[in-house]
Structure formats: structure tokens, C-alpha cells
């Protein structure tokens, strides 16, 4: 078997599982998902090993048709790192979700159980597709898969507020898709291809290309929920069941973000001017500051965590001006690694946080922050999990978040753009504020009790939080993986 089969398996196993889930029914789909999780993780790890070992991206031309006529998978270091992340998060979520969405033998299929497993597999397959694909229209298909899977996840509880949140999300997402597709049409009209690598050599800075890039960027920002297009995110992510929120925050918003990276640094290296990159990072900075302040002001734990996602997404956009202003330099490499590690570390930390907050809400019967006093005694493991994940979000050493923010900070100072460094520091303080607020109330003596004593799932969330911290202990050389096959350095 050639290495080219690996990305095909990474995409097709979850997609096949999603399709088969329908005839298998809820119980069969649950078992299939739990069987596919280790298999998919093995594939993702194999991909990472091959990419790292060969120091080159994996390419696979589908049907032997080379771009621009055909489609090719291209898995670089960024894709490999994110695929491993996705496999771990999906696997952990699947294990966690057995409690909530499991179907015992002989039990009748429920709507929630029927829907959850194929939706989870669809998010996995779509994420891997966004990571493996190298064609602007295949990206569109991945975006649609993500939307169609994420929307019902939001509405899974069937309550009126969650239905409203789902409708709002769907409207944002559909508008984002259609703007993106309009950009794809113009791009094809200008260059006659949609392959990212071929486009890099063909798409000049002509007006059609620039308008296409602007439309696609706007569409992707709406899907990534960058401020001011974030309005749909907090109600959607806070209203979904915990297991759903975990993958929505950890993976779904990253899918559109990775496509944005491909567009800016793959299709158009150097074409969107430094000014555009500054604006993007400016929005990111606003997201960090306003999102964190909003998180501080929340009364409810799940909303706090959702606003924290708005803020943490902001960090991802700080890499744009740093790479755009210093193309091909060490600084750009640092910013790239910092951004990607932020995406990975946030995925682990936020999945852990949503799972743990969901557990706390389920055990305490509410998620009002001011009433969780005593939770530290009643629910020690979830509180520790929240704290550890909080370390990564703050960027306290040693943690994955620290590595990410340190790299971005260093790159900002090297690039002479000290104002981003300031934003990173302020963001860290504000994050510390809202994490501390939860911990300080929770660790206070109080009457919060957890009547049910099942330990289901708290270990899974803890493991995810520990992984997010342990990323900070990786030797710097390991981060070299995400440098492999960087498109802004040429195909």
C-alpha cells in the first residue's frame, strides 16, 4: 500500500461510517464509531510519521488525474498535526458521549442517539477533507459537510432556544458558503483552475482575483466566527449538548480557518497586501479583548466557555500580518508554528473544558457560576480539568498554549509589530481573570453538591486537558512538523 492511500483512508473511513450509520441505526452507529476511532487515529499517526520522516507532504492524485484537470490530496505538516488532533478529540468525544447518546441492547432507537453518531463522523470526515484537499471546490464541499453536521448538533436538545441558535447559525453559515462559492467562480474565471498549487503560479493580483479573495475571506470569516461575525457562536456552542460543543469549538471552526490559511498563503502568497493582513489581525485582537471581557461578564459557565472560544479564535489571526510582512523568514516560520500550535492546543483545551463544564452542569443541575461554590469538594476532577485547560488558554508555562503564544509574541517583536505582543499579554491576563473567577468560586466552601456519583467521562476530559498542557513539553524540534510543505514557501 502506498502512502497516498493514507489521506484517502483518513477522509473515507469517517464518510463511509457516516453513510453506514443510517441503515445500522443508533446502536450500530455507536459501535461503528467506537471501532473507527482507534483506526482513524492510527491512520492519522501514520500520516504524521510519513510526513515527518520524509520531510515532504503526501500527495495522491485521485483516479490518476493530475491537477488542474483532476483532484489531488496534499497532506502537509499542518494537515498531519491537525488530523492527529481531530482523531484524538473525536475519539475522546465518542467515548464521553456513550453515556449521553449510547443505546443499550434491546433499547429503542431515540432521535438524539440516531443523529449524534453520524453527525460526529461527518464532522470528522469533513475536517479531514478540509485538511487533505487541495482544491477550492472540494473545500466548499467540506464546508457544506461541516455546516450540515454542525447545525443539527446545535439543535440536538430540541429546545426552543437551541432551535433559534441553530437557525441563526445556519443563516450565517449559508451566507458564508455562498460568498465563498462566488469567490470560487471568479477564481476559476480568472485562472481556469481551482487547484491550490496550480493557482499559486497562475493567479496574479488582478481585480477578479482580488475580489474573489475578498469574497472567500468574508465567507470563511463568517464560518470561523471572527469578530464581528461571531454573533452566532455563543448561543450555538453554549446551547449544544456538551459532547457536541466540544467538537464544534475544537474542530468545526478550525476547518474554515485552515481553508483561509490555504487561500492566503497557498493560493495568494504575498498578494493580499500587508494592510489587509493588519486588518485581519486587528479583528483578531478585538476578538481576543472583547471576547475575553464578554467571557468575564457571563453568568453561566457554558456561555463563558463559548465566549472564550470567540477570544481564542482571535489569536489564530495574529499570524497573518507577521507572515505577510516578513515572507520566507525565520519570523514568519515562528508565526506559522505559533498559529498552528494555538489551533491544536485550543482544540484539546476547549474540548476538555466543554466536556467538563457539561459534566458539572449535569451533576450540579445548573451552570450558574455564582452558585458553584463547593464544587471543588464535590467535583474535584472536573475542577482540576477546568484549571488545567485554563492554563493552556491563558498561555501559562508550561503548556501548549504557552508555546503557541510565546512563538506569536516572539514573532511580533521580531517583526517590529509590538502592538500584537501587547494584545497577547492583555488577552492572557483577561483569560486568567475568567478562569480564576470560576476556580475561586468553585473552590470556596459552599453547599454545591453532586447528587449523582457516576464518574463517567470525567477522566476523558482530564486526559484532554493534560494533553493540552503536555504539548508545552514537546521539544521545539517536534514543532518542525508543521513547517513541512508550507505553501507560502513554494510548492
Amino acid at each position, binding site marked *: 500500500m502506498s502512502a497516498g492511500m493514507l489521506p484517502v483512508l483518513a477522509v473515507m473511513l469517517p*464518510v*463511509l461510517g457516516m453513510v453506514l450509520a443510517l441503515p445500522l441505526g443508533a446502536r450500530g452507529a455507536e459501535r461503528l464509531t467506537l471501532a473507527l476511532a482507534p483506526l482513524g487515529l492510527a491512520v492519522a499517526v501514520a500520516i504524521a510519521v510519513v510526513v515527518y520522516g520524509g520531510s515532504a507532504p503526501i500527495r495522491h492524485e485521485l483516479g490518476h488525474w493530475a491537477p488542474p484537470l483532476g483532484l489531488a490530496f496534499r497532506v502537509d505538516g499542518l494537515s498531519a498535526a491537525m488530523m492527529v488532533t481531530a482523531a484524538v478529540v473525536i475519539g475522546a468525544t465518542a467515548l464521553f458521549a456513550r453515556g449521553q447518546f449510547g443505546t443499550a441492547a434491546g433499547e429503542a432507537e*431515540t432521535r438524539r442517539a*440516531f443523529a449524534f453518531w453520524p453527525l460526529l463522523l461527518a464532522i470528522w470526515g469533513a475536517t479531514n477533507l478540509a485538511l487533505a484537499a487541495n482544491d477550492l471546490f472540494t473545500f466548499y*464541499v467540506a464546508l457544506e459537510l461541516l455546516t450540515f453536521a454542525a447545525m443539527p448538533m446545535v439543535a440536538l436538545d430540541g429546545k426552543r432556544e437551541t432551535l433559534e441558535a441553530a437557525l441563526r447559525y445556519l443563516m450565517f453559515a449559508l451566507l458564508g458558503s455562498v460568498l465563498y462559492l462566488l469567490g470560487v467562480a*471568479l477564481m476559476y474565471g480568472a485562472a481556469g483552475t481551482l487547484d491550490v498549487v496550480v493557482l499559486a503560479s497562475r493567479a496574479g493580483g488582478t481585480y477578479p482575483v482580488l475580489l474573489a479573495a475578498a469574497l472567500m475571506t468574508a465567507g470563511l470569516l463568517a464560518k470561523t466566527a471572527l469578530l464581528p461575525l461571531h454573533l452566532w457562536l455563543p448561543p450555538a456552542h453554549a446551547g449544544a449538548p456538551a459532547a457536541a460543543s466540544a467538537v464544534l469549538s475544537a474542530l468545526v471552526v478550525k476547518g474554515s480557518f485552515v481553508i483561509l490559511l490555504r487561500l492566503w498563503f497557498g493560493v495568494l502568497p504575498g498578494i493580499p497586501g500587508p494592510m489587509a493582513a493588519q486588518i485581519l489581525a486587528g479583528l483578531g485582537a478585538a476578538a481576543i479583548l472583547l471576547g475575553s471581557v464578554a467571557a468575564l461578564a457571563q453568568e453561566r459557565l457554558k456561555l463563558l466557555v463559548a465566549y472564550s472560544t470567540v477570544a481564542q479564535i482571535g489569536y489564530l489571526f495574529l499570524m497573518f500580518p507577521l507572515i505577510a510582512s516578513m515572507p520566507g523568514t525565520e519570523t514568519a516560520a515562528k508565526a506559522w508554528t505559533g498559529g498552528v500550535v494555538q489551533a491544536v492546543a485550543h482544540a484539546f483545551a476547549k474540548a476538555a473544558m466543554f466536556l467538563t463544564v457539561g459534566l458539572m452542569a449535569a451533576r450540579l443541575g445548573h451552570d450558574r457560576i455564582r452558585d458553584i461554590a463547593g464544587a471543588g469538594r464535590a467535583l474535584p476532577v472536573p475542577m482540576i480539568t477546568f484549571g488545567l485547560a485554563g492554563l493552556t488558554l491563558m498561555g501559562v508555562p508550561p503548556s501548549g498554549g504557552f508555546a503557541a503564544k510565546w512563538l506569536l509574541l516572539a514573532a511580533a517583536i521580531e517583526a517590529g509589530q509590538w502592538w500584537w505582543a501587547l494584545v497577547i499579554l492583555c488577552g492572557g491576563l483577561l483569560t486568567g481573570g475568567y478562569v480564576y473567577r470560576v476556580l475561586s468560586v468553585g473552590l470556596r466552601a459552599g453547599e454545591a453538591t453532586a447528587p449523582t456519583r457516576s464518574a463517567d467521562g470525567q477522566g476523558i476530559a482530564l486526559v484532554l486537558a493534560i494533553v493540552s498542557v503536555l504539548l508545552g513539553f514537546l521539544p521545539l524540534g517536534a514543532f518542525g512538523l508543521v513547517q513541512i510543505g508550507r505553501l507560502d514557501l513554494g510548492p
Partner: protein
Amino acid sequence: MIADLLIVAAIVALALPVVLARSAFTAVALFVAYGLLLAFAWVRLDAVDVALTEAAIGAGLSGVLLLGAARRLAGGPPVEDAPPGKAQVALIGVGCAGLAVALGAVILALPDPAPSLAEPVMANIAAIEVGNPVTAVLMGFRGLDTLLEAAVLVLAVVALWALAPDAAWGAAPGWRQPPATDGPLALLARVLPPIGVVVAVHILWVGADAPGGKFQAAAILAAMWLLPWMAGIAAPPPISRAWLRIVIAAGPVAFILAGFAGSVLQGAFLAYPPGYAKAVIIAVEVVLTASIAVALALLVLGPPAEDRGA
């Protein structure tokens, strides 16, 4: 040229009032007419495959879906937020007009001669062994996209059913239709489907070498399958039926298996064995057509609804 301008004027004349309409029902009636005219635009653009799809899906299935929704919401459509103020509307209007103008300017500025993949498609079409270049792209050169789109439709059915109220889970999809009426409607619903099925098979079959194919055939089949239910002379199967779910999944599964067969036999996913490409493609298309038809029909019907038992 004159015909083009006539079509354009008519489409704009329909699109504007859709957006400005006071009642949803009026807007939907206008929208159906708009869909029909759009099919002409596609004929004028020499995209007969697309015209067929637009006629079947844009005007047919969408029309039925939206008319049903408009009727059900007639009592009072859900209003989300406060309407925007006059100044805001004006600002949005200027912005949208600006975008349209910029888009128009950019379309005029597209490179001439236009870059195109028509030549490589025709140079390699022999290897796909079908005569219709659009089918060659769909099933051959960009087969991955088509495969994944088929999976998107399965996902859409799952997503739709996930929106059912818990009380209605497992029941038949859709809202209760008014009781059956004898007379012209019931007659039509009995006479038309057999003809439609023949037409659909024809469109699928010619699709290999002429405009047509699985999407168009599936849309017609879906419409024919829906007719007796809409006329109230038959009821759709409950969503818990095993055969229903198997048919929906069969198409994408067959496509994926064909893809993996290519991996094993030819060394690349979705590579077809020389000499058998057309046979494989047609086999996959037949199964896909059935899956897509069922999926489209179920999407039009909607999730099981609570008022069914009432």
C-alpha cells in the same frame, strides 16, 4: 441577443418583488416563475445539463417545498429580530448595489481568451468512456467531489430527521396531507408517475452521452414518488423502515467501494479499470440515482411532524 435581454428583464422583474414581497405566499409564487425562467438562461448559456437540473429542482422540487412551508407559516411567520431602520436599509442597499456593480465590473474584466479546461477534458475523455463531457467530469476527473456531494445528501437526511420532535420519532415523514380527493388530482397522481419513471430512466440512460444524468433523473423520480402522497392517495413509509435507510445509503457506499476498488486494482482512489470505465460508471450511477431520488423526496417531505397523529 433580444431573447437574452428579454429573459434578463423578466428574471430581474421577478427577483426584485420576491425580495420586497409583503406575503410569503406571493413571494413563493414569484420564485417558482423565476426558477422556470432561469432554466431558459441556462439553455442560452449552452448548459442544457444545468437547465434540466434547474427545471427539475429549482422550479419543481423547490417550488413544492416552499409552497408547503408558506402555507404552514401563513398564520404568522416567525419574526426573529426587530426590523432594521430606514437608514440601515439604505446603507445595506447601497452596499449590496456596490457589490453587484463591482462584481459586474470584474466579470467584464475577466481575461480574454478565457482560461478553460475544455481542451484537457476532451483530450482525456476517451479514458472515461462516456460521451457527455459533464458526466466525464462528474464521474471521472472530479469524481471525488461527486462522491462527497452524494454523502452530503445522506447527511442532509440525517440532519433533517434530527430536527424532528421527539414525540414523532420513527413515524412517517412530513405533515399530514388533507384527506384524499377523488377527481382530477387523484387521477393525475395515478397517471403521471409511470410516465415520469420512464422519462427518468431515459434521462439517466442518455446522460452518459448527452445532457442528462443521475441528478436530473433522481429529481424527476423524487417528484413522481411524492405525487401520490401529495394527492393524499398514499402515505410515505415511516423513517424507521430498514429498506428506506438502506436505499439512501446504497449509492454513496457503492461509489466509495468503486473508489477503493480503484485503489487496489489501479493504484489510485477512483481510478477505473481501462475498458470497464463506462460499465463501472453506469453501475454506480444507477444505484446513486435511486439513493438520490429517495433522499430528495425525503428532503422535500421534511422530518416527521407532531400533528400527524392529531
